């Protein structure tokens, strides 16, 4: 087998193939734009920002919001590659926060029940979203836009019921503090290592000898973990191939035996669960939940995915790209506070980034498809 293959591959290196430099080969990777963006933004802040931004504590400072957005962005990216949008993930963060708060505070459930329950409710709503989109053939944009309002409203109403009239539900921290599962979803990981590093003077400490950075915030670990898993799934598993196919051309994929419906509904569920995970982490972190949680995050997540190389038309993109897209976001939001610039530049910067990313992606797609 291997011998018969050899001449074929040899012949494949034919005279009609120009030598392709590593540069132009990299150009074909969807995440290239986002990586270039990270380098650009880093350079910008290295020049303009206070040096504190790139100390260990400064990095944790911008990586934490980046991770919270990034978890959503990875879900959004997978869904976009699969050819659909979910505009309801921001509201899903608020709604899942409510469910989680109600489970832990109102019902007093332990995390081992509260977390799966919250994820299951989110997955259920994702499945409803997906089923409506697939059954009706309506654009997911419009269906999930409806859920953006429905879930936001439901969070408000639900919070008032659960808290007796307020739009905030407190007491989550007290309810879950001692739970054995809590360290997986809140606080900082690798505390002892950081304490030890502080002891030997490898990292910055406060005057009392405690490390300035007590550990890695768990959301950063979740973020990295999810980015790796998503990348592996997309590039190396049959399911990944189905996601690209379903987003690239639904009919062609289905005619070739890809279970397009299942793939898309699973992606809607996954995206919703990403929203729920962010809700669980941030609610445990702040100790309370409110109806404004996750506001506008759907757009930020989609923007991060687009900066990361996802095409709005589906079928192309990467999870690693969304990973870097979210980091760009975190750097810009937090980084501006380290500079003399006004915070309000943030939105201008964001819009500019999005526009550049879309233009760049458009160009890349034309190159990949040979401008057909």
């Amino acid at each position, binding site marked *: 087998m291997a011998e018969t293959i050899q001449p*074929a591959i040899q012949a494949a290196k034919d005279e009609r193939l120009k030598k392709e430099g590593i540069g132009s080969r990299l150009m074909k990777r969807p995440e290239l734009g986002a990586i270039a963006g990270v380098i650009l933004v880093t350079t910008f802040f290295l020049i303009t920002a206070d040096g504190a931004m790139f100390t260990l504590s400064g990095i944790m400072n911008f990586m934490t919001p980046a991770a919270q957005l990034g978890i959503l962005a990875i879900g959004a990216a997978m869904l976009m590659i699969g050819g659909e949008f979910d505009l309801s993930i921001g509201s899903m963060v608020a709604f899942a926060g409510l469910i989680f708060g109600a489970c832990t505070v109102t019902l007093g459930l332990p995390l081992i029940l509260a977390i799966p329950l919250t994820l299951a409710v989110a997955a259920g709503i994702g499945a409803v979203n997906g089923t409506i989109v697939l059954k009706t053939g309506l654009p997911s944009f419009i269906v999930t836009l409806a859920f953006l309002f429905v879930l936001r409203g439901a969070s408000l109403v639900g919070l008032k019921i659960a808290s007796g009239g307020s739009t905030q539900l407190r007491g989550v921290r007290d309810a879950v503090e001692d739970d054995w599962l809590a360290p997986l979803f809140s606080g900082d990981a690798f505390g002892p290592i950081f304490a030890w590093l502080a002891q030997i003077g490898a990292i910055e400490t406060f005057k009392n000898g405690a490390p300035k950075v007590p550990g890695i915030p768990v959301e950063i670990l979740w973020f990295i973990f999810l980015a790796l898993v998503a990348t592996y799934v997309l590039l*190396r598993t049959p399911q990944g191939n189905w996601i690209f*196919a379903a987003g690239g051309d639904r009919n062609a994929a289905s005619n*070739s035996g890809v279970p397009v419906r299942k793939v898309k509904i699973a992606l809607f569920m996954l995206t919703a669960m990403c929203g729920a995970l962010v809700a669980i982490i941030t609610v445990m972190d702040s100790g309370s939940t409110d109806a404004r949680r996750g506001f506008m995050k759907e757009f930020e997540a989609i923007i991060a995915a687009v900066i990361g190389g996802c095409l709005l038309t589906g*079928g192309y993109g990467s999870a690693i790209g969304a990973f870097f897209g979210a980091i760009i976001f975190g750097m810009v939001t937090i980084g501006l506070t380290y500079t003399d610039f006004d915070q309000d530049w943030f939105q201008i910067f964001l819009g500019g980034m999005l526009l550049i990313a879309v233009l760049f992606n458009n160009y890349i797609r034309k190159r990949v*498809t040979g401008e057909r």
Partner: protein
Amino acid sequence: MTQDTTFHHGDVSTDVRPIIEMTDIEKHFGNIIALAGVSFDVRPGECHCLLGDNGAGKSTFIKTMSGVHKPTHGTITIDGKPMNFSSPRDAMEAGIATVFQDLAMIPLMSVTRNFFMGREPTIGRGPTKRMDVQKMNETAVEEMRKMGINLRGPDQAVGTLSGGERQTVAIARAVYFGARVLILDEPTSALGVRQTSNVLATIDRVRKQGVGVVFISHNVRHALAVGDRFTVLNRGKTLGTARRGEITPEQLQDLMAGGQELAQLEGSLEGTV
């Protein structure tokens, strides 16, 4: 290039049980009646040509055979057992592979990913179960080479291939997966001379292995070169089925065109059609 005599025709005896048998298939799209009762079967080791004018219903018919459409009426049996495909995946699992007229290829994806779309070979088990990328690449290159096309690389996006190259990927894929029935919907419409004879030779090869082939073409010479039986559709109905040798190329051509017009046209073009 491809004379009638190029290939050996397996003399399929009529008493062999068909692999797939479609009886009285009707297909309605709203108020459009695309198929109004078509019966058709494929026996192992034969090439059954499906012929007919544009819009006759050929593609619609083979799509019901490959699980894309559910027939409005009629029955499908495989090995004598009634079958009810709810998706193309079901048909594939029954060993039916199809080259669709629109090819069902995804331009943004690589040749390899397209080739194995929906049927990716895996290695490992449990959470480490993953696509066997090396085997996939090797197979895609090798199968394409067999069809007379040397790929520049298995990771080239299908969108950058030429029309004929793209068609060849679809054919190579169907041949590779068509364990029992291979359906080809105008597979040679974009192909060069060498690739066309390659496809016809491939039909002959898989037929000898016992695969039943359904071949749709507008080209009488191609059909006659490989066909064992010819069924002609016209406006959603069967005009009839002829066995090889029972019908002359002229008769077949007239049937395919639905009658006289072609004869007149042929006259004005001095027999060049």
